[in-house]
């Protein structure tokens, strides 16, 4: 995750999409789009951004099936001349008549933000800021995309950046691409990796105190933040140390053990979690018990060196190829009740105006429109002899809109090039 600009966070995704055996192998991709379907809801003391990124693609393949051999090349021997491919009574995994196919792929997302990070929930929105793919082989596409969550309080964000976002925890749950990997093993591996990194980074620093590990749940984050915010009031804007981002060990121990706030005295009585007296900075250490016997599937990696702590979780991980029956119905879910209510107000005129200019306007104005919270792009590969007008007509757009979306002029467009096609979410 990157704090790309004030009030905005970017999550880079890399995902491998594998076709099933029943699908024709990919030869040419016609178009592809990544559509965020994310609910932004206020849940208690936090903002829950959850949902999925839906990847849709249309492609062509199986193009040589049904083609007749017309070359008149002569065989070298008579035996060679009668070497025939055997006839078959088996149809094969996919229809020999299929020339086009599509894929749908879901990347679940969950991000938790302390409520204090936003002024108004309707300010928060998510969109795909960049999207690219690489055809690794006819059965695999690697997706690269960036999901941006924007609309945080800029002032607070700035101060948190300066102060290390003490006590704030974002949870980003990315679920996909683990077909052949045991989720439990994967979770343990990731924990080990994260912990190894932690240990490595900590080894470089002089450690005076070995506190208990930080294991933060969403509820706890809010608790932490409240505590932290109180502390922040007394703290001046000094250069934050990584260790300053962390809670007091006693506090962490409580969170880890019980997941709720309990009297500190009780926790201190547990020898395992007993921390040495605090001497200045507090350094988090991993709790190996968690690795050996994960109490839940969720994996949380605390990255103390970063400003915002993100937990990439495997909670509910499952490659999910849900059948999506209607894109329009999918989008109807995206608006939160809260947003709906607010948008009925002063923004409605602006939205109506934005709609007049169709998708192109959306691209440029979406930041200012609260109702249109997501941006989608379709990828279109310009075919030989295909004109911009034809492409624009196909997607019911103005040529200028496409050029604008791609920041290109007519002369910069050529066959084989990938065009971003703006689509209103």
């Amino acid at each position, binding site marked *: 995750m990157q704090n790309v600009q004030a009030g905005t966070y970017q999550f880079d995704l890399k995902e491998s999409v594998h076709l099933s055996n029943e699908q024709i192998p990919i030869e040419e991709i016609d178009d592809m789009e990544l559509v965020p379907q994310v609910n932004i809801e206020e849940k208690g003391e936090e903002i829950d951004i959850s949902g999925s990124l839906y990847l849709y693609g249309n492609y062509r393949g199986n193009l040589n*099936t*049904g083609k007749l051999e017309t070359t008149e090349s002569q065989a070298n021997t008579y*035996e060679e001349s009668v070497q025939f491919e055997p006839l078959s009574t088996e149809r094969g995994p996919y229809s020999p008549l299929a020339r086009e196919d599509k894929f749908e792929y879901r990347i679940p997302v969950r991000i938790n933000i302390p409520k204090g990070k936003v002024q108004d929930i309707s300010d928060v929105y998510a969109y795909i800021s960049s999207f690219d793919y690489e055809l690794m082989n006819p059965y695999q596409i690697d997706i690269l995309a960036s999901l941006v969550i924007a609309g945080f309080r800029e002032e607070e964000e700035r101060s948190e950046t300066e102060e290390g976002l003490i006590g704030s925890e974002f949870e980003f749950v990315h679920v996909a691409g683990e077909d052949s990997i045991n989720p439990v093993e994967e979770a343990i591996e990731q924990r080990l990796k994260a912990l190894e990194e932690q240990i490595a980074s900590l080894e470089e620093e002089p450690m005076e105190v070995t506190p208990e590990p930080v294991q933060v749940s969403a509820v706890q984050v809010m608790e932490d933040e409240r505590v932290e915010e109180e502390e922040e009031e007394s703290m001046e804007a000094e250069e934050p140390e990584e260790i300053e981002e962390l809670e007091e060990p006693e506090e962490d121990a409580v969170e880890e053990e019980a997941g709720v706030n309990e009297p500190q005295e009780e926790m201190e009585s547990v020898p395992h979690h007993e921390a040495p007296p605090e001497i200045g900075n507090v350094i988090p250490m991993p709790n190996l018990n968690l690795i050996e016997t994960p109490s839940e599937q969720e994996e949380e990696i605390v990255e103390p060196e970063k400003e915002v702590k993100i937990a990439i979780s495997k909670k509910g991980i499952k490659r999910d190829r849900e059948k999506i029956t209607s894109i329009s119905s999918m989008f109807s879910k995206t608006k939160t009740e809260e947003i709906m209510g607010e948008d009925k107000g002063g923004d409605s005129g602006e939205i109506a105006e934005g709609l007049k200019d169709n998708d192109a306007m959306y691209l440029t104005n979406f930041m200012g429109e609260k109702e249109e919270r997501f941006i989608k792009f379709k990828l279109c590969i310009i075919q030989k002899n295909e004109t911009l007008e034809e492409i624009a007509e196909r997607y019911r757009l103005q040529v200028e809109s496409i050029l604008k979306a791609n920041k290109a002029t007519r002369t910069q467009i050529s066959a084989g090039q990938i065009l971003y096609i703006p689509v209103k979410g």
Partner: protein
Amino acid sequence: MIFLKVTLEQLKKLLSTYRLKVLRIHPHDHGFLVETNKGIKVVTIWDNGELLKWSNRWREEVAIQGGTGVERFLVNVNKKKYIRYQGKYYVISSVPEGHHPDVYCNDECMKVGELFARYHSALDRIDQGSVTPVSHSQVDEKLFTEATTWIKQLMQSIEQKQEVPTLIDEIIYMNLPLIYDRFRRAFQLWEGIKDSISYLPLSTVSYHLEQMTKNDEGWYIGGGYNQPLAPLHQDTVQLIREVYEKSEWKIEAVGGFLKGYNNQRNLTDSEWVYILMQLAVPWEVWKYFTEYSKQGNLSDDQVDLFLEAINRQKYWDDLTRFVARLIDRKMEASA
């Protein structure tokens, strides 16, 4: 089966010219099988006098050359080998008793090849007279052009079908290019030898194992009644396929047949390639593809037979490769 308005009395009268006493009459594919006081005779009915003469010539030639018994036409009291009645030719011949070749026995396969070669050698020597080949010969240039065009059209029609394709549509569609490839290769072979085909003597369009009989007196060849004619080796391919199929796809049986044939009569390079070309054509499955094309689908019974034919094509491909290997070896040896 020929159905003629010939009464028993008329038939008895005809046979009386052969000094034969009719005991019992049975219908036969080409006339009647008659039990007489001098054994079982076959009465065959011919439409074409020239064809009858041609058939008599090769029988007499085989008899002259010797080496095998041959089914000859009997001579009647008028010193003729036929009786003309109602515009048709009635011919009587003796039917030897015995067994037909056992294709599980390699020696008998060789013998079949040898006997068949004797028959062909007789055809080489006789005057063909004014007989003509059938206009609808199994293999000619038209076959290839029509088949390849037809395959393309059928593929297009399946692609353009409005309905969701059935499994049979898909199986037909996916196999059509493979069938096309066989026709294309066969056509290439045909292109190399088509000029020499016209120099081959004529023979009946088919020849079957049941036309050969073995008894205590030896082997007999016969049959071929009132059959259309085609250049030599359409019958050879027919017989090879029968030997192969009846031997349950034993390539050795075909090997034995070809060895026996070549011991008696040498196949020229062109003849070898002509045989190979015909073997490359997927006749059996082709029948079902054309049925599908005519009907737009196949009945349940046809589907079973079609799928079986597709599976059997593997054996025909094996046979084709086997013959191709023999040709390659022959070419290498003579190079």
